[in-house]
């Protein structure tokens, strides 16, 4: 793949891939390794995107599959799932407003407490703006499963953040 094409892909999709990988792994070093792996594959296999209609969805799916495989290996080694809540690297941008800063911090912690499958659906729905149909394609799950996972995940976030949300509303 030409260098310019790889740069275009990076500039258009790296932020989204970084965010979903970070939200999944909760580890910045792992996120970097996985992002590196995605672009290494794109560089060495130019045909990977041939015939792909939705580049973003394809790359999100690739990122998710790599992350699932990565976390499975990491869990086998270190049972790292237990460390999710304490190893969050901070998913959100820093906020100047103290209320926003507190809310983002609590939202980050609440997301870390969600099961990974619910967390991924919530992420793709809220911050990627994907439909449940596309989310189902990305995560390789039925549409209804994507919708129910989103509902469960959002309910947990709502319950967890309601006091703070009502206070700073």
């Amino acid at each position, binding site marked *: 793949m030409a260098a310019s094409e790889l740069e275009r892909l990076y500039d258009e999709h790296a932020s989204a891939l970084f965010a979903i990988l970070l939200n999944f792994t909760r580890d910045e070093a792992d996120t970097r390794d996985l992002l*590196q*792996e995605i672009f290494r594959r794109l560089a060495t296999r130019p045909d990977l995107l041939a015939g792909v209609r939705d580049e973003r969805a394809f790359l999100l799916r690739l990122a998710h599959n790599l992350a699932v495989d990565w976390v499975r290996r990491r869990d086998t080694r270190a049972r790292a799932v237990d460390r999710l809540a304490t190893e969050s690297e901070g998913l959100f*941008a820093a906020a100047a407003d103290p209320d926003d800063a507190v809310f983002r911090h609590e939202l980050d912690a609440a997301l870390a407490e969600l099961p990974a499958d619910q967390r991924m659906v919530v992420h793709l729905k809220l911050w990627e703006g994907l439909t449940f149909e596309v989310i189902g394609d990305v995560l390789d799950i039925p549409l209804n499963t994507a919708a129910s996972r989103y509902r469960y995940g959002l309910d947990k976030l709502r319950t967890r953040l309601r006091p703070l949300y009502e206070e700073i509303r």
Partner: protein
Amino acid sequence: MNLDDFEQRLRRQPLRPVPPAWRDAILDSSQPSTLEPRPSPLTPRPWWTEWLWPSPVAWAGLAATWVVILALNYAAAPPLSAGGPRFAGSINGYVLFSRLAEEPQFDLLSETPTAPPAAERPRRTNPGPRSDARRRILSA
């Protein structure tokens, strides 16, 4: 699906951007010209690593237990004397015994014990026959 206020609030929270320093590093190392045949972090490890990895401490403990058992077994074996049988304590002792049993001196079952040749009795000179004794009495 319409997003309620809570969802709208969540959606407005900006995600942290990818660190700028990563761009050049990732793109440079992803160029085919700079790619080396390095092992990918996702490359599957050897099968034996996968087999051992879930509980390396348990496997190490099992190996250590076997070492202790072998050491104790070795220490408990009777010492080998210089001229003694070299097969003491060996599991091949039965085989060696079987071979020895085939030797003539060990053919215990087929050999019929024979009485040693009777020693020749010394010729008795005294006392003589009873008739002689009677003659001696009468002549006395």
